[in-house]
């Protein structure tokens, strides 16, 4: 109930902002407001390291004078500041150009149904409870094996926030959501080789977090397995992206079919709609209405209704990822993706992690990627990597200081299999992904 009162209070402020914009002469306006509170506790070597109390708020407003647009934001929600912020946005709109594509969404695309997506589960853990949990997690990691030599610590984070947005078409909505996480990072040493790795768990509801001991054990296990990694000779071979790194591959794909890159013609997938981008067995879809999931939402950053829809089916690109503006630039309609995709999911295949290693047979398992070496315009891809060399489906030894390279267009087409070892922690849900062949550079 308390939440509903606060949401109503923030709705009143947003309505005031929209009214103020109209008063200052704007023909249309959109405003968003957020408030968030949180606690972060980190421990290291069994003792408290930091206790942080978070308290954030902010408002953003965009005004239109016909086809001219101006934006402003502030962290100060006082009445005087709101007036100044609206006035700053209006002042900017005097200098921006007429843009025939700019403006609020088409009214018929705005969300009209607002199901409870089960996103709000405050966690009353308190500072002491958070310390106890973090210590338990780090202890599990540190006592896992004698070669665990040092620690960067464990931390517990809990956040609760409220977001409200509205526009001058009469859209005015808000919701509360929570996000909790537990993470741990430790070091291991054997001879000259020192390595570090981590693990984390994140959820809307603390009940869905992995246990502290499991997180600690996993962090330790992931660190230990990297010890005495070596480089590889330069070669070409099949590459298996583990689930956590595979999400990066899909996020590059989403970048290439996003409206902003398409209308600027800075994508390697221009004019790819209705053509084959993946092998036939691949289906990629959005699931905005999943209860309790991290990427769920009934509407996007502009109030447009989100859609449960196939982006790829039978390997064919069925739709782009568009906001109102980019859609108009392309002569299309918004797909409800202002601000990104919602629980993007690639359908899992029949193999689990072990099965995927067998499919890889002999090649590279990539468990970590470094750097940003992706050229969105050409699809050229070259990134630092670490992982394991695999022969006959069995891990042989850890590898590091290598790069993997190819062209994303070919890499997506040449996906051989998708695992059912899905990582559910993020907004992109995928199992491991096996790519037929890439260039490895090493010693």
């Amino acid at each position: 109930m308390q939440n509903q009162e606060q949401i109503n209070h923030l709705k009143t402020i947003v309505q005031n902002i929209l009214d103020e914009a109209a008063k200052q002469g704007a023909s249309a306006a959109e405003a968003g407001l957020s408030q968030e509170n949180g606690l972060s506790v980190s421990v290291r070597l069994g003792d408290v390291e930091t206790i942080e109390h978070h308290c954030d708020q902010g408002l953003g407003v965009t005004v239109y004078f016909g086809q001219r647009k101006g934006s402003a934001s502030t962290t100060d929600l006082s009445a005087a500041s709101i007036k100044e912020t609206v006035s700053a946005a209006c002042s900017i709109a005097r200098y921006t150009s007429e843009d025939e594509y700019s403006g609020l969404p088409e009214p018929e695309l705005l969300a009209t149904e607002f199901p409870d997506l089960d996103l709000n589960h405050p966690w009353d853990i308190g500072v002491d409870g958070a310390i106890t949990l973090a210590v338990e997690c780090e202890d599990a990691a540190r006592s896992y094996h004698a070669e665990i030599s040092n620690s960067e610590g464990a931390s517990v984070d809990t956040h609760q926030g409220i977001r409200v947005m509205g526009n001058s078409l009469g859209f005015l909505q808000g919701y509360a959501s929570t996000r909790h996480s537990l993470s741990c990072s430790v070091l291991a040493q054997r001879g000259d080789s020192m390595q570090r790795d981590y693990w984390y768990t994140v959820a809307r509801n603390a009940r869905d977090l992995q246990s502290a001991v499991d997180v600690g054990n996993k962090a330790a296990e992931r660190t230990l397995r990297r010890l005495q990694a070596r480089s590889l000779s330069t070669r070409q071979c099949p590459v298996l992206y583990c689930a956590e790194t595979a999400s990066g591959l899909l996020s590059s794909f989403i970048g290439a079919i996003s409206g902003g890159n398409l209308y600027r013609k800075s994508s390697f997938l221009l004019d790819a709609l209705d053509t084959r981008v993946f092998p036939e067995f691949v289906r990629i879809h959005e699931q905005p209405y999943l209860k309790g999931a991290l990427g769920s939402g009934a509407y996007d950053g502009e109030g447009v209704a989100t859609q449960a829809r196939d982006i790829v089916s039978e390997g064919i690109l069925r739709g782009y990822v568009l906001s109102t503006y980019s859609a108009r630039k392309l002569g299309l309609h918004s797909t409800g993706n202002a601000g990104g995709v919602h629980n993007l999911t690639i359908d899992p295949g029949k193999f689990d992690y072990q099965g995927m290693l067998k499919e890889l047979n002999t090649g590279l398992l990539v468990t970590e990627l470094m750097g940003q070496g992706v050229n969105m315009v050409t699809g050229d891809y070259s990134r630092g990597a670490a992982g394991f060399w695999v022969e006959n489906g069995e891990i042989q030894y850890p590898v590091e200081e290598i790069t993997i390279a190819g062209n994303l267009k070919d890499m997506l087409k040449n996906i051989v299999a998708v695992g059912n070892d899905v990582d559910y922690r993020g907004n992109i849900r995928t199992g491991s992904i096996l790519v037929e062949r890439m260039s490895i550079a090493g010693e």
Partner: protein
Amino acid sequence: MEILNLARQAILMPAGIQDGDIEKIMNRLLSSPVDAADIYFQSSHFESWVMEGGIIKEGSHNIEQGAGVRAVFGEKTGFAYSDRIELPVLLEAANNVKAIVRQGQEADPLHCKVSIKAADWSKHYATQNPLKSLPDQQKIDLLRRVDSETRKLDSRIEEVIVSLVGVHEHILVARQDGSLVADVRPLVRMNVTVIVEQDGQREQGSMGGGGRSDYNYFIDRDIALEYGREAVRQALVNLEAVDAPAGNMTVVLGPGWPGILLHEAIGHGLEGDFNRKGTSAFSGRVGERVASDLCTVVDDGTLQGRRGSLTIDDEGTPTEKTVLIENGILKGYMQDQLNARLMSVNPTGNGRRESYAHLPMPRMTNTYMLPGQHDPEEIIKSVKKGLYAKNFGGGQVDITSGKFVFSASEAYLIENGKITRAVKGATLIGNGPEVLTKVSMVGTDLELDSGVGSCGKDGQSVPVGVGQPTLKIDGLTVGGTSV
């Protein structure tokens, strides 16, 4: 005094906060036996303008202000912040953070008295507001001129995107001894991105720059138009690029922005926090050889008007020129107050934070290598087969294993001492503690980057600078596709 007064006017006066209020908050913090405490006040005004598709497409104005309250006890830190600069809110924050000290421990009643310390350090940039350095119409005119002049350069240009960003930031730090110190920080940046097309093939080029200055920086010497020319040149070079080689080879890095090598390969590994905790590949190695004797590397926050420069850091410590590596020998680390105290060394003015809502930690300012003896042309001539990398995108490092990457966006083959074909961008990967030991030639041509760098650590982004002369590295892995 002048700067302190400017900061008071910008932050404290609108909020109605008096010196007596700061004393009250500090006394609340000091009522537990903390080792250190501070209150960080900040007010930032930010604007951006974007021209795209031949029109002024977007503009925004943002205000960010608030205060962060911190108490430190041993290795423990308590921290709270609020965007409401109000006495009751900050007193409550102080109550929350002093709980970092175990209950039952009471401090000797200390009384904090705000005292104004003469700022006897030299300033490394002017205080005027860059947002007001040009009337809005002239900012628009500048963008339009860059756009139209750039579009004229080549018929293959498909799109030009020009952005202009300015920040005017006031900060004020109150420390546990009652001293108040302040800084006023201008920052401007302009970027030009072009997309070119030839026979259905597209490429992109990008160039930008700026510093702690105002918008006249881009107009004087027509530097803005130079960004456009350079962006077009890079895009056209990349149209001709062939597949990059793959494998370990001799790499020559051009001067200036390729200094991102130093930032990633050794800079992060030399930050005090990692070394206090023993988690860096450089931990415990002061006095040891970590580079060839040709290499001297410094972190220097005192350069006039550079993007990474600071008069004082975010804990109120004046910045300095810190020697990290001298003739190949590791001399020391970059420190903030907490890590300097725990390691019993002096702070180096590297305590930085993204904003009042973040905790300070050791961060780089402008990191660069001093010039050497070799003529850059002679360096290229000495390479029979290798890669010449001239421009880079971002980089990343794992400070524990020491492995780092940085991605070339403009590179060429060197064949028999000559720069020949352009090759596609590729990621370079190496081992931090090892890479500088393979530096066999250092050029005379030290350059600093044009002022575009941002560095991320623990989710906090701060502006930084890098620089270096032409460098020859005998063996680095190049991640191309041409096996």
